[in-house]
């Protein structure tokens, strides 16, 4: 598997971003929260790399940094051989055609005052891809591609259900025929029966258009169905990264194991989900491993020294002293 690695489309190098933490009624800045704390990751062309983590792990921030929708503090993002974080705005605009985003919230991600036709066709208008009539025709095609009727063009987003809105968001994202799409929890606010429809649609589009996905999610069972590689994030760092089957069959990092074991399996005969130690009340020491206080296999070294992400075997990377 690892021998025939495909061409790398996106390469993230030591990316960092922190936000000020404010406290008290004067909102004094009392420190900085490292939302993304030195992440390096490579995304191969035509594949899906999943970024998994819980609330506050920094996965959404990472997705936005990669698209330069949020300025990074430091680090690099290489896309098709160009470093995009240092690109001047004029050149960035052209690059936008090749990278797109699909958001989690199908309600907040569509402008309530624009008709669906305008929303889906906006990119085409910005880059002047044809006349008015040509764009209208293209919008119809796009809507058909995501399974919506042409009449949808005339309606406003609030006239659609959550799943249909997500289809509108997908049509908008593929309109410019991008190479790379960041899918930020695209199915986590949808019902299960609808979730499956959207996941299938994303797979079909990937096959048809040769898309590369960075798929951000918190649900490991969803990720298993769509990802080729999986990266697990915890408190701003990637703690484990591997091809899908390896990660699910032999998870190395204790956090990944906790995550997998916590999922309730829809089978009454299966073992009940384990409940790990409760989350700590206070932050751990800065120096040690960020998972220290919740870790079932911690040793003294973990408190003093943070483990770096290192290759354990055959492209399987983990950040833990005990593997």
């Amino acid at each position: 598997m690892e021998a025939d690695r495909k061409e790398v489309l996106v390469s993230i190098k030591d990316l960092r971003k922190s936000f000020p933490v404010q406290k008290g009624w004067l909102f004094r800045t009392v420190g900085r929260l490292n939302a993304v704390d030195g992440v390096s990751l490579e995304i191969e062309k035509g594949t899906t790399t999943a970024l998994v983590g819980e609330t506050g792990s920094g996965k959404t921030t990472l997705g936005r940094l990669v698209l330069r929708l949020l300025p990074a503090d430091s680090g690099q993002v290489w896309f098709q051989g160009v470093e995009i974080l240092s690109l001047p705005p004029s050149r960035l605009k052209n690059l936008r055609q090749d990278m797109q985003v699909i958001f989690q919230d199908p309600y907040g991600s569509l402008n309530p005052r624009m008709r669906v036709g305008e929303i889906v066709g906006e990119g085409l208008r910005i880059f002047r891809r044809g006349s008015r009539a040509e764009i209208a025709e293209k919008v119809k095609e796009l809507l058909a591609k995501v399974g919506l009727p042409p009449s949808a063009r005339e309606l406003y987003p609030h006239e659609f259900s959550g799943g249909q809105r997500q289809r509108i968001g997908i049509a908008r994202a593929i309109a410019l025929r991008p190479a790379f799409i960041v899918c930020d929890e695209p199915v986590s606010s949808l019902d299960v029966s609808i979730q499956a429809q959207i996941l299938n649609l994303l797979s079909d589009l990937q096959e048809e258009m040769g898309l590369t996905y960075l798929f951000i999610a918190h649900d490991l069972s969803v990720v298993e169905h769509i990802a080729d590689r999986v990266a697990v994030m915890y408190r701003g760092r990637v703690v484990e990264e591997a091809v899908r089957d390896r990660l699910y069959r032999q998870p190395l990092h204790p956090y990944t194991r906790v995550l997998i074991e916590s999922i309730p399996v829809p089978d009454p005969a299966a073992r009940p989900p384990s409940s790990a130690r409760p989350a700590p009340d206070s932050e751990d020491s800065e120096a040690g491993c960020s998972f220290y206080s919740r870790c079932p296999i911690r040793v003294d070294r973990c408190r003093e020294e943070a483990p770096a992400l290192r290759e354990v075997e055959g492209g399987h990377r983990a950040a833990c002293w005990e593997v």
Partner: protein
Amino acid sequence: MENLLEVKGLEVSFPSPAGDFKPVAGVDFVLEPGRTLGLVGESGCGKTLTALSILRLLPPPGKITAGKINLQGVDLVTLPEKEMVKIRGAKVAMIFQEPMTSLNPVFTIGNQVTEAIRAHQRISRAAARRRAVELLRAVNIPRAEERLGDYPHQFSGGMRQRVMLAMAISCRPLVLIADEPTTALDVTVQAQIMGLLKRLREELAMSLLLVTHDLGIVAQATDRVAVMYLGRIVETCPTPLIFQSPAHPYTRGLLRSVPRLGQRIRRLQAIEGVVPESSLRPRGCSFHPRCELADERCREAEPVLETVGDSHLAACHKAPPPAGKTDG
């Protein structure tokens, strides 16, 4: 076994200028003492409104327009509001999906928990405080005594749900209704809360009505399950049966569309189509537009819940007949 809570033919409707619409249109189920019933369905199916009806806390202008809700033989639907106040929190308690918004941000945790205790029990402030500490310990909140003075925003989502749980069990209710109690939480926290719910149910000998959309949770935490679609129960049976031999096509579709860990398949099977608005309920079987088995009869006549197996009921014309009753 004797039934603790019995819901029969429950109907909830919201009057509107375009005509009343009924998000709950005939729901029946029973909750046995000490058992957990999972009420399962997708958003808009009426499961939350069903739960709120039991406490008579429907958002206006919603009203219960038909049916009975018997709690130990007393019909809660016709009970005067004055009597109902004594039921809420004391005999039937509820926790919600959003632990962020269910707590009042301007009062301390201690304040709110003691308030909940003193609402139904005539005890002194000091005694209530001691009881609050006990309760917070019971739900595994570390350093419970110190944390009484903290405000809700100083608690994480999981900790807030624990506080809600502490308040809910403060009067040792007979029935605890948990409406998507872990949906807003991370999966590791979810596992902790579900474990806690299970332990408390056993220790306090409560019955649990667990409203959820997650079939994983159903499998792990319930004894019996009722599947809702468009305001009706379409199938109900002991939990293992729903995974072994689901009788209703909707249940089967739901089970097929759930991504399962370790069972990766090329394509997930989705239920085609969308859930219609409850104001546009299809004629006949309300699932027929999305059902692959639907025929003329399904388009015309509405199926009712019928026995298809041992304490297994389904509302489907196409459901297999009860085993052992086949003539021939």
